[in-house]
């Protein structure tokens, strides 16, 4: 602890004294576990933002930024706490882009982030529970709360003619939170929920779950789960048994892995995930393609933005000390100020250094509402022709 305080003090001193200082950003993502297929592109998104800042040479008087990856497994809160603890104590990071899944994020925030005064900006933890958490101002997210996704999901389902649905959700904070917010929104708008059922990930067999959902019936099945886990297992069973052929798929399921698995069988299914369109998104996708990864992958843009916000807030505060720059995150993310799109981190750093206010939009049109989460734009997708098509924004 003493060492840590010394280190923090040294960093604060260094930054305050206008020395070029090496800054480290931790990336806490589930490189193994239920969302392992999304993590690599998210990490690459964040690392791209870091490289941009380095290339500009404008960051905190020419400081270099490095990234340190940590595997939080997404599912195992104890492993996530250990991973984040390692980032804070051994890697001595100045900020963390992460966590990834809601349960693990809550645990590592409460047990490591807040006690150690570490800023954590999550690109993808969407549980409504995080809105009301005592975070001491250290937690932000570039994704919206699932309270909002539930509303959007209900709208899309009703517009597409699903009047009654069965819901199955993964048995964790994310699944429960989103499933319940979808259920209440869907019922408030006049739909019927025939069954709300939890499924456990990584089980040997899902015939019992599929049988129960089929018996409850409905126009469509909402699968609030993970594509690399039970979510796909249940869909496989439901399709084979002819129980459902239309699926309502939220952000945990909308991924390339889903199309690879089911392809043409998704013809009538639809879904949504947090994302945005427009100039920033297109620019980010181009940059990602140039950097050799898929920018359209879920939460890749949000990860880029989360890392960028940390860097810009540091620049605005003139310090890499999380206790200092945490107060600048909302400032750089929101109006007033010069609009900053994806790929313009260098320009933003220059503007801040010159004393100009900025309004960071980045890849996902970042607009943070209190207490530090994205207001939320979603893209509506369908799977006609055996591929994922973005059909609109909400």
């Amino acid at each position, binding site marked *: 602890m003493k060492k840590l305080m010394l280190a923090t003090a040294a960093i604060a001193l260094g930054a305050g004294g206008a020395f070029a200082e090496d800054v480290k950003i931790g990336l806490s993502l589930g490189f*193994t576990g239920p969302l*392992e297929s999304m993590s690599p592109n998210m990490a690459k998104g964040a690392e791209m933002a870091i490289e941009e800042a380095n290339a500009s040479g404008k960051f905190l008087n020419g400081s270099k930024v490095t990234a340190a990856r940590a595997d939080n497994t997404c599912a195992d809160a104890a492993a996530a706490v250990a991973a984040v603890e390692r980032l804070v104590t051994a890697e001595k990071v100045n900020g963390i882009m992460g966590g990834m899944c809601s349960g693990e994020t809550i645990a590592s925030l409460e047990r490591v982030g807040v006690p150690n005064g570490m800023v954590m900006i999550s690109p993808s933890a969407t549980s409504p529970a995080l809105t009301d958490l005592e975070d001491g101002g250290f937690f932000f997210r570039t994704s919206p709360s699932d309270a909002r996704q539930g509303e959007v999901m209900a709208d899309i389902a009703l517009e597409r003619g699903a009047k009654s649905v069965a819901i199955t959700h993964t*048995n964790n904070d994310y699944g429960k939170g989103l499933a319940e917010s979808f259920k209440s929104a869907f019922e408030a708008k006049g739909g019927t929920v025939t*069954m709300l*059922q*939890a*499924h*456990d990930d*990584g*089980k*040997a*067999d899902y*015939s*019992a*779950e*599929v*049988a*129960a959902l*089929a*018996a*409850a*019936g409905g126009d469509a099945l909402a699968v609030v789960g993970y594509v*690399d886990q039970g979510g*796909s*297992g249940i869909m*496989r*069973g439901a399709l*084979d*048994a*002819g*129980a459902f052929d239309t699926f309502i798929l939220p952000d945990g399921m909308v991924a390339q892995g889903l199309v690879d*698995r089911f392809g043409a069988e998704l013809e009538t299914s639809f879904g949504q995930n947090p994302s945005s369109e427009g100039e920033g998104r297109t620019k980010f996708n181009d940059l990602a393609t140039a950097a050799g990864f898929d920018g359209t992958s879920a939460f890749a843009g949000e990860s880029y933005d989360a890392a960028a916000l940390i860097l810009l807030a540091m620049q605005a505060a003139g310090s890499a000390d999380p206790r200092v720059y945490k107060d600048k995150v909302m400032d750089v993310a929101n109006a007033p100020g010069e609009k900053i799109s994806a790929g313009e981190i260098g320009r933003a750093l220059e503007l801040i250094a010159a004393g100009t206010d900025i309004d960071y939009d980045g890849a996902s049109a970042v607009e943070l509402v209190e207490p530090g989460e994205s207001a939320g734009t979603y893209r509506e997708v369908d799977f006609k022709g055996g591929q994922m098509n973005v059909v609109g924004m909400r």
Partner: protein
Amino acid sequence: MDILNALVAILNFVVIPAAAYGAQLALGALGVTLIYGILRFSNFAHGDTMAFGTAIVILLTWGLQSLGVSLGPLPTALLALPLGIALTALLALLTDRWVYRHYRQVRAAPIVVVMASVGVMFVMNGLTRLVIGVDEIQFADGARFVISVPQFKAMTGLTEGLALRTTQAITLAIAALSVWALFAFMNRTRAGKAMRAYADNEDLALLSGIDPDRVVRLTWIIATGLAVLAGTLYGLDKSFKAFNYFQILLPVFAAAIVGGLGSPLGAIAGGFLIAFSEVALTYPWKKIAEYLGFEPAGLLQMLGTEYKLAISFVILIVVLLVRPTGLFRGKAY
């Protein structure tokens, strides 16, 4: 017509999936029970033996596919099975030589051997991941369905559909075949009789000139064969994921214990009992009741599906309380 619909719905959602799952559990439990009966310890590495064997079968399947070999409507993996079993059995024999033989020679207490098998489990666990990785792999090819829902509906004109996947049919056929072969071997051949004698009374078996090393070798080969069969059938029917094979260890052991550890018949009964109670007790009977002319208010579901694992354990506890040796009078050491 309505009664037919009700029957088809039960078949489609309860009987067929539970029977296929039950057969997979039964094959796994048979291996566990054989090792318990003859080598006298609970082999915790069984789940990971299933995973390792399946990984080898998948690699061989890929090899065959790249050579252009296929079995038409049947999965190519069936062709790869014999060699996969042979290779995995080789590993099991080596494990016995390096680990278990020592404990047999010093006549270690069963619990010591069980702990050794936990160690073997972790090694196998890592080995499987080194060989094939952690990702989910679909390796079933050939025709997906014997009967699919749209075909069935067109054929019969019923509102309820019925699906029978090729892998489900194969699972049931192969399970029946291998159980028949196992019992024929155990009851008719000299080697099988020697194994049973060794299981009943080791000292008497040794006195009557039975070679203990041969019995041990045979046991490992047969148990591993059953494990690889169970693993491959399960992987074909669902998908291969190393982690899931670790999870399946639990229901497999539950099945073996419920049936009576050491009793092959018990293992089969236990497998089906666990699978059917998991599916049937959590199935909402509303639709069936409607077809039969009732108008139920609720879903008529006895238990939420979240509790399906608990069902196996409740059965386990009840059996252990009422009949500690299991349904078919296994042995307890």
